[in-house]
């Protein structure tokens, strides 16, 4: 389990990195290395060139403007988890991060790396999708943005071209006082989830649901925004019966099926977790501590 032969590049700027991407064939970007390095060690991938982004200092950092928080692609998961700003304005992200791997992998793993690896079960992918994040992508013609909804092209395949790279993720700030919950079912703590769910609830002054975002991870090839369930909730008073009805939409999911986990079980887990997460989010929105 030793990495295969490759050529190594460690550019100092995004321009330099994009230049290398344009010039070289069969490249892989090395971010925190928590997914790529195991794949190299196990020789699941054989890149000719590895482009290490760890020496591009401008790629890390968390900044807030009027409506969003912008997190550089190379920001370590640990730094996001520790960020008071994120905890204050994007608590869903903080909660999701507690489920991401372990202390040692969060110390090194990055948000950009996790999003680009796009494992269907990855917590950050589900959280970003649920927060309506936009992805900043640098290429030969400059920077473009893509909504998280359009970011996955398919199973573990982001919609970025070979000469492009993700530089940041931008999360719109949900209204203060919103309710949120991130839950997952994994066989062991820190493992990738079998099913995860991210929920964000905004209550109107009349206590009705003004906004609902629900995303399931792990059940499909890409994170599933549960638009039907969201529509079902908006405009209604929150309650267990309503949440159960929302959760029932999970029965129709075309869930992933693999040797370890049958589809029926994923569907059931999805419904269970969704109802639970909605209840938690509601309690938080109503200021009840959970």
């Amino acid at each position, binding site marked *: *389990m030793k990495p295969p032969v490759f050529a190594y590049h*460690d550019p100092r700027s995004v321009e330099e990195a994009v230049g290398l991407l344009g010039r070289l064939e069969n490249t892989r970007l090395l971010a925190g*290395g928590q997914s790529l390095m195991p794949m190299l060690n196990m020789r699941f991938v054989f890149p*000719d060139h*590895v482009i290490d982004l760890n020496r591009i200092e401008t790629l890390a950092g968390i900044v807030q403007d009027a409506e969003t928080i912008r997190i550089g692609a190379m920001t370590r998961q640990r730094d996001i988890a520790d960020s008071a700003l994120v905890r204050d304005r994007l608590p869903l992200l903080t909660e999701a991060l507690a489920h991401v791997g*372990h202390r040692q*992998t969060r110390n*090194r793993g990055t948000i950009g790396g996790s999003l680009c690896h796009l494992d269907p079960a990855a917590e950050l992918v589900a959280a970003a999708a649920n927060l309506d994040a936009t992805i900043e992508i640098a290429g030969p013609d400059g920077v473009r943005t893509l909504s998280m909804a359009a970011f996955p092209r398919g199973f573990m395949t982001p919609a970025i071209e070979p000469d492009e790279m993700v530089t940041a993720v931008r999360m719109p700030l949900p209204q203060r006082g919103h309710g949120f919950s991130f839950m997952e079912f994994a066989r062991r*703590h*820190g493992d990738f989830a079998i099913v995860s769910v991210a929920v964000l609830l905004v209550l109107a002054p009349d206590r009705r649901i003004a906004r609902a975002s629900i995303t399931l991870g792990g059940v499909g090839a890409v994170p599933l925004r549960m638009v039907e369930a969201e529509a079902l909730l908006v405009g209604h008073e929150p309650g267990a019966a309503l949440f159960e009805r929302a959760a029932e939409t999970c029965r129709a999911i075309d869930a992933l099926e693999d040797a370890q986990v049958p589809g029926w079980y994923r569907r059931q887990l999805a419904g269970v977790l969704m109802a639970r997460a909605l209840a938690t989010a509601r309690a938080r929105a109503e200021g009840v501590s959970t």
Partner: protein
Amino acid sequence: MTSVAVGDETAMRRIGVTVNGTLQAGEVSVRLTLADFLRQDLKLTGTHLGCEHGVCGACTILLDGRAVRACLLLAVQVDGHSVTTVEGLAPSATVLHPLQEAFCAHHGLQCGFCTPGMLTTLVEFLKDCPDPSAEEVRVAISGNICRCTGYDSIVEATLSAAANMRDGS
């Protein structure tokens, strides 16, 4: 196989890294992992390899003070950085780090294979969280697999070390 031209920076690199306080320079193949660099080139074999795919935690070292998995880093990546391995924890040849003391006193190890990774992880953890609850300790080392002890004694050892370190400081 790609042939390597002499002086090809994309294939071989000279690196300089501070390991346990001493600057170590060497020429490495770019695909050499940090774990293998420490174990083979520097003969610091205390950093163990239990899986080489980032799950077991045996290879944990401190990179600029942070606990990371050495099997998931390339040696070239730590050029200019500072690394602490288990060999660098004890203050001297006769004195142990309080965590090492506590592991001995509380039977926190049997075969000792997971121990270096446990210790390095806990050194960082206790720096962040000097007065942890048992539950916090359990979460902190849930990414370190031990096949021998059943973990209980490791948690006990950690709590006792934390108390000693608080008293000592």
